[in-house]
């Protein structure tokens, strides 16, 4: 990078790099939706509310102990526990033969969790500090990623890599995938499918909590609705990616993040959701099952 670069290029570089960091968070949250979709064959509409509960726990732990990392660890554990509790003691009791009762229970859960948080912690925004500076690095006079953005990207990459290894290289991952694709066949091979579904929920909500935790310092602060917009955009990204594909969630998350950043920078923040909606519409018109949907099975 040289100092002669025009302000237009500087602006583009800044918007692209910011978009990547936001996209990484979106991709993580979209991945959490894909994991739960695979496990339960349903979109979890309570994902945002379930993700924000562990963030409050992290906030409380960090405030009390002074350690961001302890808060982060507590958020992951709380997310996993919340996923297990909601799946075992709530959604498993709901009739499974059609998705509607589950969706309605999930929406009810959103109200209970968000109202509960507002009662316990108050409805106000609470400022949350990032563990690293949010002042962008200056590379040859051009503002690029901040140290915190870099941290977000690294965490997202590590988590994605970890899931890739888990799903593709381990017995548990093989059982998770088999249980998702063919529950009865999996049971006939000795796989404890209900346990795999619970595990899927635990992984999903812990991942969603991590995404929300990474997002909160870059926004207005922590409130019970802090992850709602993240959920909407990540849901769009997950659908664009194919809803069943972790790779699709990653790619679409980054694309949606960069798109929203560019539109916010060149047009206005209010236009960004419309751009995401337009992208979603185009993708669904061209490829109704999403960009990375599984190929059709051979029938002959």
């Amino acid at each position, binding site marked *: 990078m040289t100092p002669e670069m025009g302000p237009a290029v500087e602006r583009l570089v800044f918007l692209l790099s910011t978009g990547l960091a936001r996209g990484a968070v979106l991709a993580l949250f979209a991945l959490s939706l894909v994991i739960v979709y695979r496990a339960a064959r349903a979109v979890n509409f309570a994902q945002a509310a379930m993700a924000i509960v562990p963030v409050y726990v992290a906030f409380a732990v960090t405030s009390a102990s002074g350690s961001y990392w302890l808060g982060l660890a507590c958020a992951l554990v709380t997310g996993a526990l919340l996923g297990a509790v909601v799946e075992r003691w709530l959604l498993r009791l709901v009739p499974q033969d059609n998705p509607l009762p589950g969706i309605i229970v999930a929406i009810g859960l959103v109200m209970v969790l968000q109202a509960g948080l507002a009662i316990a912690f108050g409805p106000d925004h609470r400022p949350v500090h990032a563990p690293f500076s949010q002042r962008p690095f200056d590379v040859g006079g051009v503002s690029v990623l901040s140290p915190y953005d870099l941290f977000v990207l690294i965490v997202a990459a590590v988590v994605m890599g970890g899931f890739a290894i888990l799903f593709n290289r381990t017995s548990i991952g093989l059982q998770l995938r088999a249980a998702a694709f063919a529950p009865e066949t999996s049971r006939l091979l*000795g796989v404890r499918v209900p346990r795999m579904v619970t595990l899927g929920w635990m992984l999903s909500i812990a991942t969603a909590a991590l995404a929300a935790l990474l997002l909160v310092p870059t926004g207005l602060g922590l409130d019970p609705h802090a992850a709602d917009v993240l959920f909407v955009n990540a849901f769009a990204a997950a659908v664009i990616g194919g809803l069943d594909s972790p790779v699709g969630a990653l790619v679409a998350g980054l694309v949606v993040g960069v798109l929203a950043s560019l539109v916010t920078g060149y047009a206005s923040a209010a236009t960004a959701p419309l751009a995401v909606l337009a992208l979603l519409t185009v993708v669904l018109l061209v490829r109704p099952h999403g960009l990375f949907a599984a190929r059709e099975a051979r029938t002959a």
Partner: protein
Amino acid sequence: MSTLTIEKLTVGHGDGAPVLHGLELEVPDGGVVALLGANGAGKTTLLRSLMGLVPARSGRVLLDGTDLTRLSTEDRVRRGLALVPEGRSVVVELTVAENLRLGTLWKTGRKRKGPAREAAVGQMYELFEPLARRRDAAGHTLSGGERQMLALARALVGEPDVLLLDEPSLGLAPLVVAQLLGVLRDQAEATGLTVLLAEQNVTGALSVADRGVVLSLGEVVADRPAAELAADPALRHAYLGF
């Protein structure tokens, strides 16, 4: 390896009339028993009930004298029971190798470690040459014959004590059927595997079985040595309709 005993088994779907009425059957250790009968005789229901996929209303299922009736499907598999269900039950989203590995995860009572699993999978590739050539292909790209081979290999690789098969020949070319049944017979002879084989392909099934059991409307109506059943036109006509 194991004896499967079915005592007074009654099974029905929903509130309907029972499909199986107090069915009694013993599949002896190392025996290969052909389960014959027309559509609707209750063959599939019997096999699914033995695996715990359809609950029994009454009666018991014993494996070497141990009552399995209250165990879940997964636990029955871990005790040594295996079913190759109707319709080429390959997980089409997974590759051939992944399907086989899934079959190795839970062996009777104990988990096996890496090298033993690899060896078991290698053996299956030797038995089913077409699978070895397509080991990294996704299940949905396999032909019908290859899928049924994979379903059988995946059951065998888990080294079950009792193997149940639901119409493995359905919709397959005669040559493929002959090959599959041949492998089944050889495996049963080599390992002492106990087999209960439900089939519409009576000739094929009786050629590998040592006993034939005819099911009609949920009850056993004939139980004879396979050769006798295959050779006696009157029996065949009365029970099997040809």
